[in-house]
């Protein structure tokens, strides 16, 4: 801890030295502080508080809206898991857009955390013959079924292992999160993810101001900047308050189930007990917390 402090003051000194040059280009102290902000997991509670206060002010200036930024940690005795009923899903993509709205995903360039794949019934789960750009008048289409894919919240995630700067990690409740202020944007995690669950801000993300969700989590749906990776967090800002993820709420056919694995009374435990489930690409030993099953 002490070492960290001297390191910090060292960095501060450098920052002071380069102040003159930077103020000339329109940088202020806050931006410098943000630049020298350390990895979220090494911050003290006090530092987190300060950062969040600054962030709320910054958002107010930038978007002219009051944001509530939370850094609520994982609850004890909770491990989240998800189950998706393949026999019910009709491929309407309502979840995709509910997710976009809830999580402030960029509209242009477009980012979708959920990809819905249309598959041929005869081929089963076969990615090579699937289509993500299906666009008929009406779904479901004859002879097809639908497989929505988002982050599988693996128990042994590849993406966090490969990150060169520890900007992404698995929380105690199983959610894999990213510190957008620490991510350097090398995209190694995207190469490593077997589910295409990670998305990069190739340009400056754009969300219409009136559509911004101001109820945000630091590690989840707060507005992003260009050049960082983002992903599904099971709606961390909702589930840690005891709500369902928004894709679960919106699903018109009730194909999406969510709950606490450690709670024997939960719906997710009921499904694991009474239905037969499968996980995607089980041969890669990622051990997802996202299960698929056939309800009927």
């Amino acid at each position, binding site marked *: 801890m002490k070492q960290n402090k001297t*390191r910090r003051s060292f*960095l501060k000194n450098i920052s002071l030295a380069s102040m003159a040059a930077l103020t000339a280009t329109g940088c202020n102290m806050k931006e410098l502080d943000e*630049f020298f902000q*350390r*990895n979220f997991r*090494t911050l003290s509670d006090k530092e987190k508080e300060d950062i969040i206060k600054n962030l709320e002010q910054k958002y107010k200036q930038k978007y002219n809206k009051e944001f509530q930024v939370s850094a609520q940690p994982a609850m004890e005795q909770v491990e989240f898991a998800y189950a998706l009923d393949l026999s019910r899903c009709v491929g309407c993509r309502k979840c995709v857009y509910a997710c976009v709205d809830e999580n402030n995903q960029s509209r242009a*360039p477009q980012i979708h955390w959920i*990809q819905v*794949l249309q598959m041929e019934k005869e081929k089963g789960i*076969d*990615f*090579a*013959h*699937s*289509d*993500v750009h299906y666009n008929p008048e009406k779904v479901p289409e004859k002879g097809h079924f639908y497989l929505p*894919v988002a982050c599988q919240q693996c128990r042994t995630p*590849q993406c966090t*292992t*490969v*990150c*060169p*700067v*520890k*900007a992404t990690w698995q929380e105690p409740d199983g959610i894999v999160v990213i510190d957008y202020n*620490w*991510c*350097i*944007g*090398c*995209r*190694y995690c*995207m*190469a*490593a*993810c*077997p*589910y*295409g669950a*990670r*998305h*990069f*801000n*190739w*340009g*400056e993300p754009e969300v219409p101001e009136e559509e911004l969700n101001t109820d945000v989590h630091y590690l989840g749906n707060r507005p992003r900047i*260009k*050049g*960082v*990776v983002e992903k599904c967090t099971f709606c961390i800002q909702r589930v840690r308050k005891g709500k369902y993820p928004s894709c679960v709420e919106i699903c018109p056919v009730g194909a999406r189930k969510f709950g606490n694995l450690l709670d024997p009374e939960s719906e997710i435990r009921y499904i694991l007990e009474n239905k037969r489930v499968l996980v995607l690409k089980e041969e*890669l*030993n990622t051990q997802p917390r996202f299960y698929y099953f056939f309800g009927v």
Partner: protein
Amino acid sequence: MNFIRFINGSIKLILKGSNAYYAWLFFLIVLAVWGAFGYADQLNEGLITTNMRDSVSWAFYIGNFTFLVGIAAAAIMLVIPAYIYNWKPIKEIVIFGELLAVCAVIMCIAFIVVDIGNPLRFWHMLPLVGTMNFPYSMLSWDFFFLLAYLIINLTVVTHLLYCIFYKKPYNKKMVQIIVLISIPMAVGIHTVTAFLYNALPARPFWNSALLAPRFLASAFCSGPAILIILFQILRKITKFEIQDKAIWTIAELMVYSMFIYLFFTIAELFKEFYSGTEHLLYWKYLLFGIGDSKEIVPYSWSSITMGFIAFVLFLIPKTRKNFVTLNIGAVLIYTSVYVEKGIALIIPGFTPDVLGQIYVYTPSMTEIRTAAMIFSLGFLLFTFLVKIAIAIVFENYRISDISKKEKHLMREMPTT
């Protein structure tokens, strides 16, 4: 003080030269400026100016990086045969090999910097000030190895040149030990770079144990190709004495590497095509295209064709010993490996993507311009370093030359 003089003397050296030298510099600078404007666009708009997208999230930049790691590695590995066959100008070969390695590593790091979304956060990767994910992330390993390799080579080559410049005996033991360390390091940097791709189960195209051996074999084709040409130029314009035999031996070693590379690739292809699993898709995309998406096919076949012609030219003793065909072969194999590492290695790893979707990637103008910027600046640096080394090693450029001039100037200055 002495070191400042050494730097001063070096700067004077690189500013003087023939017309051809100035023309070469002018060409490189124009290219660099043209490229820099492309890169400026990328800095403003973000990586959206490239053709990379979520499906193909790494592409031309990381391919260039991989290629240059190979060049950096091979430049030093060439020291091994130099010792074994006891080529006469061994000190010179070490010096020029290391200069090439230094430039290549600097270019490698530049390619990582342009590829990342937040270049200003680069310090997050550094030990102590950042949070390096050591020992888990292969990228951390790679970065660490490259940095160490750069420092080692820079130390040796500066020490050698500095000592010759000051007519001091160089620390033979230290140099020998460091060179001996840098040889396994050279193998190491390319192996770690292969492991970067190799250890991703999500990408079957790379997930083959043969990847690292193939990297090393191909590097031993492209790296020496530059040095063969450089040695011939040096021989013409300086007192650098390297016998034809040494050059032919390098060429012979390149044939072995090409053969080994060919063998590894055939082994890989046999396994993929004969077993015909779903992993075959990536090779199909590379060699024939899938459906209407054939954009990458010309790249792969031009690389294969160039490589094959070079192999034949190097294999037949008559064409290997003819400097015209030898040089054609060297250029061909260099280009072949460049296309292979730049495009043919990376793109099929991502196409089809992990969810089976096909996004057709070819480099955008911004990517080409940014790469042109890095290559021209890298060549510029290499030209300068070689120029300094030539003057010091072959033209007896010494400290005494500078001090004489300084005394001369002092005398001319009016005393008050």
